[in-house]
């Protein structure tokens, strides 16, 4: 295939790529491939205890040239955190097994490993708590004494920390009639009768009230976290894999007490991220090591460290759904207990998203949600593809099926009857526009040959909505280069979702030129304008608008064009009213399967997802994101689970933690729903949340009511046994 044969439209067509895409032939360099001459290597020393105090370090065996960094070296540095400022670069009071308590820096990686193994640490252990509900009991230890909201721009909504408890943020939704009641600050009991709001269900003739659980899970980016830091003329330069360069720049500036302009973050294309590479991970300790040693420093995490670095929030979700006998939904009450582990990270944001996604794309007279972001002594939860929606949609869509069972009605028809339509109001008070839920529902049902009121044994459907981060800002610049090509300068980080392809195509479309006239510069905070971050499936949508403006500006003014767009909104944390999302990610899924009744093994014949995309920029990219989301959803549903003993992760490796292989995806098919003239809708996550409940509903239709993910064969057999006994 030669350059001249390359169609601009062809798969793989991207920024100034001629010939075969370099990702296929190892022609690009990932953060893990990079190195700076003269660099030293950092190894983090981590806590063996889940909670307590480091009483001493024994470092006498270290060679003279090894640099040992202890919590004393960071005493002056302020706390940080993207939403709650609860983190410290090195802590003397570890809060989870794996918490960074010290570091060694050495000329070679081997020397650093040896050095780390020679440091002895003594601890004074304290009581730890691991379960999100146990952490709410009066007798449980407080993981953090106080909750300080962060000044970071990632704290884009008001926090409601519950002082004196392990709840660092509480998000509530209260539709108009349910406000101003006397309520406890935090509901700590899963069987709470909910008296203050009980009248919300007065008109409900049937009520389903059930509890569901999801465990911690691992992102498993194929490339580990890799960061380099060096100080050049008083400026900090960091090359790292991160989805959040500007947040990181601001946070590092805050930590080191320098201006944001004196921090430079450069982001090479990453070997996967899925949320694991967000906010500060190893960059602060690496930067500190570079400052203390006066050399460039490199830090690459081992696979078990990647597992422990950040997880998907475990959650317990209780859903109470009330409906009339004719199927009309009346009220929904949700309590989401989000286990954010030892540090909040973006847990508050996840709790918020989990809260409103759990309501689902349905009309209600009354909605009340309490979503609590709860500290425990587990490794921290953070951004994970789906961002909280999966945990509550799992519960919610299972409950809808249970309601259909109770009412004796078809599960698809019950949904159809209550789905939000164009112009309807969501529980946040916002009006739904560009809503396509019915079409998505029908599509999913058809994929498994669902017959209305027919035999649906082995079949399940689910439908959901999730939000795109609101508010947020995206800026982009396009510059005309001397050679006549155009350079796009945007902070969208490339983690496999096709960022540079997307930016290339959008720029070319707006400038009305060929894609080979476009180059995209690597996200470098010295060179690209501000963008909130590359998460939440927002980049294609936001950048499509920013680039449109930048192109217009360039065409009008000559050499450089600048686009600056934002989506305004946000939710009141006490009522959940406002604008949760400037537009909605809408998706459905369905499954057709059999369960081996002797072994509990689930065998899928069809796993289908349908997602609303609006306008698609890169067809192959959209399909890949959809397939990838479904594959992750499949693993989530059937076998992904992090396990802990006394707070220690016991399966931080790919043998003991399974992810889906090529052998697992034979049943997958999907549709990316396009609509000419519509705006771009992000697709990066949409097909994750509906997959587990679609499978769960299919499994339940065969008599196995599994409440806890993953639906392992053992849980399936146990579910039937419980049913037989009751």
């Amino acid at each position: 295939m030669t350059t001249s044969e390359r169609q601009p439209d062809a798969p793989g067509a991207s920024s100034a790529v001629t010939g075969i895409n370099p990702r296929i032939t190892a022609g690009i360099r990932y953060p893990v491939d990079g190195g700076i001459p003269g660099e030293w290597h950092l190894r983090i020393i981590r806590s063996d205890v889940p909670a307590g105090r480091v009483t001493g370090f024994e470092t006498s065996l270290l060679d003279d040239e090894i640099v040992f960094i202890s919590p004393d070296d960071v005493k002056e540095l302020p706390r940080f955190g993207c939403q709650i400022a609860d983190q410290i670069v090195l802590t003397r009071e570890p809060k989870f097994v794996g918490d960074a308590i010290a570091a060694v820096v050495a000329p070679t990686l081997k020397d650093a490993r040896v050095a780390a193994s020679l440091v002895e640490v003594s601890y004074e252990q304290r009581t730890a708590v691991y379960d999100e509900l146990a952490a709410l009991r009066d007798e449980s230890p407080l993981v953090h004494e106080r909750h300080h909201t962060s000044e970071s721009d990632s704290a884009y909504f008001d926090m409601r920390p519950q002082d004196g408890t392990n709840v660092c943020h509480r998000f509530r939704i209260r539709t108009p009639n349910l406000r101003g009641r006397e309520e406890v600050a935090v509901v700590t009991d899963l069987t709470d009768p909910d008296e203050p709001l009980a009248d919300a269900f007065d008109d409900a003739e049937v009520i389903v009230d059930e509890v569901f659980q999801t465990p911690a899970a691992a992102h498993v980016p194929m490339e580990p976290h890799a960061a380099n830091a060096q100080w050049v003329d008083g400026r900090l330069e960091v090359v790292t894999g991160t989805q959040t360069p500007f947040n990181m720049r601001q946070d590092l500036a805050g930590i080191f007490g320098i201006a944001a302009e004196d921090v430079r973050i450069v982001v090479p294309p990453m070997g996967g991220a899925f949320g694991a590479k967000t906010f500060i991970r190893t960059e602060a300790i690496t930067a500190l090591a570079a400052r203390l040693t006066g050399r460039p420093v490199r830090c690459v995490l081992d696979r078990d460290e990647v597992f422990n670095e950040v997880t998907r929030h475990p959650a317990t979700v209780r859903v109470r759904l009330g409906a009339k006998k004719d199927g009309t939904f009346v009220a929904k009450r949700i309590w989401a207990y989000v286990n954010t582990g030892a540090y909040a990270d973006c847990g508050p944001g996840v709790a918020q998203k989990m809260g409103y996604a759990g309501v689902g794309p349905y009309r209600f007279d009354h909605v009340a949600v309490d979503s609590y972001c709860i500290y425990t002594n587990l490794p921290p939860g953070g951004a994970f593809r789906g961002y909280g929606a999966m945990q509550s949609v799992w519960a919610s869509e299972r409950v809808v099926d249970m309601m259909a069972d109770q009412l004796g009605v078809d599960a698809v028809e019950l949904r159809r009857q209550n789905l939000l339509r164009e112009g309807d109001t969501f529980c946040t008070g916002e009006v739904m526009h560009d809503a396509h839920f019915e079409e998505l529902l029908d599509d999913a049902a058809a994929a498994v040959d669902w017959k209305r009121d027919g035999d649906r044994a082995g079949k399940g459907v689910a439908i959901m909505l999730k939000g795109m981060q609101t508010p947020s800002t995206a800026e982009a610049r396009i510059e005309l280069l001397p050679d006549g090509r155009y350079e796009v300068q945007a902070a969208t980080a490339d983690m496999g979702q096709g960022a540079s392809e997307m930016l290339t195509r959008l720029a070319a479309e707006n400038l009305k030129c060929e894609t080979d006239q476009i180059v995209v510069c690597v996200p470098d905070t010295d060179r690209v304008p501000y963008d909130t971050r590359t998460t939440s499936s927002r980049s294609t949508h936001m950048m499509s608008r920013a680039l449109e403006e930048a192109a217009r500006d360039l065409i009008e003014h000559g050499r450089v064009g600048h686009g600056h767009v934002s989506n305004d909104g946000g939710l009141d944390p006490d009522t959940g009213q406002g604008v949760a999302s400037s537009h909605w990610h809408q998706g459905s899924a369905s499954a057709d399967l059999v369960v081996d009744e002797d072994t509990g093994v689930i065998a899928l014949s069809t796993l289908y997802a349908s997602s609303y995309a609006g306008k698609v920029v890169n067809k192959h990219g959209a399909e890949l994101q959809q397939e990838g989301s479904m594959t992750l959803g499949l693993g989530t549903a059937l076998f992904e689970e992090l396990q802990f003993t006394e707070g220690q992760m016991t399966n931080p490796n790919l043998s003991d933690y399974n992810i889906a292989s090529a052998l697992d995806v034979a049943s997958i098919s999907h549709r990316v729903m396009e609509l000419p003239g519509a705006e771009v809708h992000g697709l990066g996550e949409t097909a994750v949340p509906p997959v587990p409940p679609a499978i769960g509903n299919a499994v339940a239709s065969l008599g196995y009511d599994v409440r806890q993910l993953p639906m392992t064969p053992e849980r399936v057999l146990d579910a039937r046994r419980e049913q037989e006994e009751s």
Partner: protein
Amino acid sequence: MNLTLRVNGRSVDVDVEPTTMLVDVLRDQVGLTGPRVTCGVGLCGTCTVLLDGEPVSGCILMTPLAVGKEITTVEGLPEDDRVVACFDKHHAFQCGFCIPGMVLTAREMVDKGHAGDREEIREGLGGNLCRCGCYLKIIDAIEEAAR
């Protein structure tokens, strides 16, 4: 110990301990970036290299075991390699981290006639994990390459 390895058609002298794994010597001393380390236990396939045309896990292969064999990494495939072209045509990649391993595995599958249908291709790819979830397009690419 000093060893001579045959890498992508050239002889390369390396200085290793017996316990140095092939993937590390290829990255650190030969300067290649195609073979990578993800799981470190030979399970996921990002460290795949071909030894005399057969895929092996470079992350757990002690380097002396590779002496006397032709080591091929993705960088050693010819520019017009058909498997590579098919991966490109089908856009069978996202982040790309697993792809060199996939390509080498596919190369052998196609060469040895083990890519007869999608089922067989799936089986042959079982040990190459892709977290981005590109399996469907990768199978499409290999199906075409085998035709």
